[in-house]
């Protein structure tokens, strides 16, 4: 069947199998930032924003998303100018292998859009569905806090 998605601001139409999930479809369309970690909604590596909310793309039927808006990591930076969340993750040393990073970043964007000044507890709760095996989460929490500061300053710099 044919579906239309607005991905990172660009409207795209393509063919899918009716049973496919957003994860497979997005990767096939070249959005490689969307990672598969488990395929069962347990790890959050595949997280993207669907109509503004962070979701496990491995569990959302692509057909369900028809007509909707998708935001992936590829849609965050403008050329070399990073989104504050990306800047913060780099600056705080919160990226080790980087495999969980796209999912973490998108969930963080969701959080900070809704709650620009989250407490540490709110940060941990918001990211509780994004698993990481490398970092122990310590610097990731700091990165979200730093991103919140950067976004309050209206900054979005390298």
């Amino acid at each position: 069947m044919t579906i239309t998605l607005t991905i990172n601001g660009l409207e795209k139409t393509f063919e899918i199998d009716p049973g496919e999930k957003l994860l497979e479809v997005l990767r096939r369309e070249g959005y490689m930032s969307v990672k598969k970690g488990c395929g069962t909604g347990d790890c959050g590596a595949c997280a993207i924003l669907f109509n503004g909310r962070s979701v496990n793309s491995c569990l959302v039927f692509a057909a369900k998303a028809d007509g909707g808006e998708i935001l992936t990591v590829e849609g965050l930076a403008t050329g070399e100018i990073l989104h504050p969340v990306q800047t913060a993750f780099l600056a705080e040393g919160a990226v080790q292998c980087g495999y969980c990073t796209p999912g973490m970043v998108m969930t963080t964007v969701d959080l900070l859009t809704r709650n620009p000044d989250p407490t540490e507890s709110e940060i941990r709760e918001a990211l509780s569905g994004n698993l990481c095996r490398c970092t122990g989460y310590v610097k990731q929490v700091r990165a979200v806090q730093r991103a919140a500061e950067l976004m309050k300053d209206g900054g979005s710099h390298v």
Partner: protein
Amino acid sequence: MSNQAKKFATVGKSLRKVDGFALVTGKPEFVADLQLPDTLHIKILGSPYAHARITSIDVSAAEAMPGVACVLTHHNTPPHRHTTAGQGYPEPSPYDSRMFENKVRFVGDRVAAVAAETEALAEAALKLIRVQYEELPAVLSMDEARRDGAPVIHDETDSPGIYDASRNIVADVDIDVGDVKKGFEESDEIVEFTCETQYAQHTPIETHVVMSYLDSAHRLVLRTSTQVPFHVRRIVAQTLGIPMQQIRVIKPRIGGGFGTKQEVLIEDLAGLVSLRTGRPALLSLTRREEFDASRTRHPMRVRVKLGAKKDGRLHAIEMEATSNTGAYGSHGLTVLANTGSKTLPLYNKAPNAHFYGQAVYTNLPVGGAYRGYGATQGYFPLEMAMDEMAERLGLDPIELRRINHIQLGETSPIFEKLGEGREGVSQTMKSCELPRCIDIGAERIGWTKKRGKRLKVGSWVHGVGMSIMMQGSGIPEIDMAAATIKMNEDGSFNLLMGATDLGTGSDTILAQIAAEVLGVPLTKMIVTSSDTDLTPFDVGAYASSTTYVSGMAVQRTAEKVRDQIFGVAAPMLDVSAGELTLHDDAVFAPSGQSVGLDRVCQRATYETDQFQIGATASCVPHESPAPFLANFAEVAVNTETGKVKIVHYVAAVDCGVAINPHMAEGQMEGAIVNGIGYALTEEMILSSKGRVRNPSLFDYKIPGMLDIPPMDIILVESYEPTGPMGAKSVGEIGINGPIPTIANAIYDAVGIRLTETPFTPERVLKAIKTAAE
């Protein structure tokens, strides 16, 4: 920044990772992110039985299915025995694996593989494969394995390197110092514990994945998520029976390893499919296969017996380890040996020591390398016994450690008696800040204020515990690392190294070392790593070797290049080369006159006595300097439900000079959290038929954001004279802390000694109730 590091320009700074931009913008840098046309997808058929012979296998229906390109079984694949363990050649692991066999030895063991146009087609084809099995009695525990008359798991005649296959014993180690029997007789106090650790899995968020294809010269390219690209090349060549030079292995960005990717697990399959079909082939293990059929932590039973004199000095230490290596012997000997070699030297004051043990086969998931590598299992009973001994002697646990732990300038006879399964290498500690680690950690946790107080808050009882440990940095006299640097005429450098960055940040750290020597900012280094065609040899990322061994290779290479630069610049500045210094992108004469590195290289490239400024250097380490760690934890135990909450965790670590403090902290933070999962919630649960009952993150619980205690990681700097810029290592040691520290804290809180991990609420509660009776 540390005191030592203050005199550095680049080293000692938490600079941003060289691959950071690519990772944070989601660039297609991982194995499965490369999409090639005509790629085949491979699926593996795994055994439903723990132990069986394949009496017949009929793949005709699968082969005939449209979209299926090839089907592999033991009938049509090379029979060469090899080990899957990514270790230096000749590997200290038995050659007991074949691509496919007419025997299966654990639930999930390879039976067949299908390559098809899509994953779905490959899976459908698997269902068409008709297999007849003759089920054999299965060995489902270490004790069963060694019983008289136990089924022989490796009854084949062509697997060399097994200690005693007829008794399912992969490896046997027995070393001693002095006479422990006499030592115990002479001791005033004796303590003994036997601890059992569970099956656990690394769960890197990216599963094992390989993409293979033939390049234009018809060479086989393996783009794989591995910690050991050079071992992959050698072992795949051996397994497939093709010349090694026909293979190129590339490790791009990978999503974590922690030891499970120190293994040549799937590259042979993909490689053979590409060779047979001429097409690219992608094989990605499912999360379920990661649990069933990749590698695990070795479950172990470890007994520690300590004998001490009244004054607190240890007089005898005995450690007996039995390790369950699963159906294949990969890393069986070496993990067993490291259980003793990374633990016993810590308490070098004991004149009598004995380490012995065996690694045994079972028809269960296969143990492999896992961060900590035996030391994790060994420190559990050792540090628990020390805790108990302190109580018996009326000493503070910290005091008992201080009396007995190895100090700067000291050695232990264990170092040369026990290495990677064979003899080791003698060494003295040239850097050791363990005393300060203990001081800092004790103060930070509030040790004297909290120990023995059993503060009660509702049904929660608080307690504090501690442990100390050491690890190593690389495998002395065995590991080798090399690097190549070439200079470009704009003053930038290409750094080519075999060293393997699995997310650890080694690309960055090693480039910082090179940049430091060459007097340039990190941004002037262009890093290429882990490509067997382009980069010189490196054993790979294991044994905490990358910073210490690969780093020294990089330092030596950079020094050679620096000398060449001085040779070119000397006539330009009209001084002798020996008077020159290198910093801020330029060469400086004593007068202050300088010439930019770009000018130097332009001269060497285009103008006078032209040559390529560049060099290669290697490093074989002659010792394995230990990082040291003191762990402290405050826990709260719920006496109603048995739940253990970590209130505060403190780790003070001496890793030498931290080349990049953020990366070093990151290693500690990640290792500790992994260790906390191993201590409290992670457990692969096996059925009575040897099947994994919880092969998913849904029921194998690893820590998430809401499970992390407040943690203090303190880098306590020392300077290791044999290490690059004074560095040692930090990759593994952190994971060894949580189990013994939490166990000792639980004892302080509720007076029970838990000897089985994980410390689930159910186990804790049962122990509390039993103690009350």
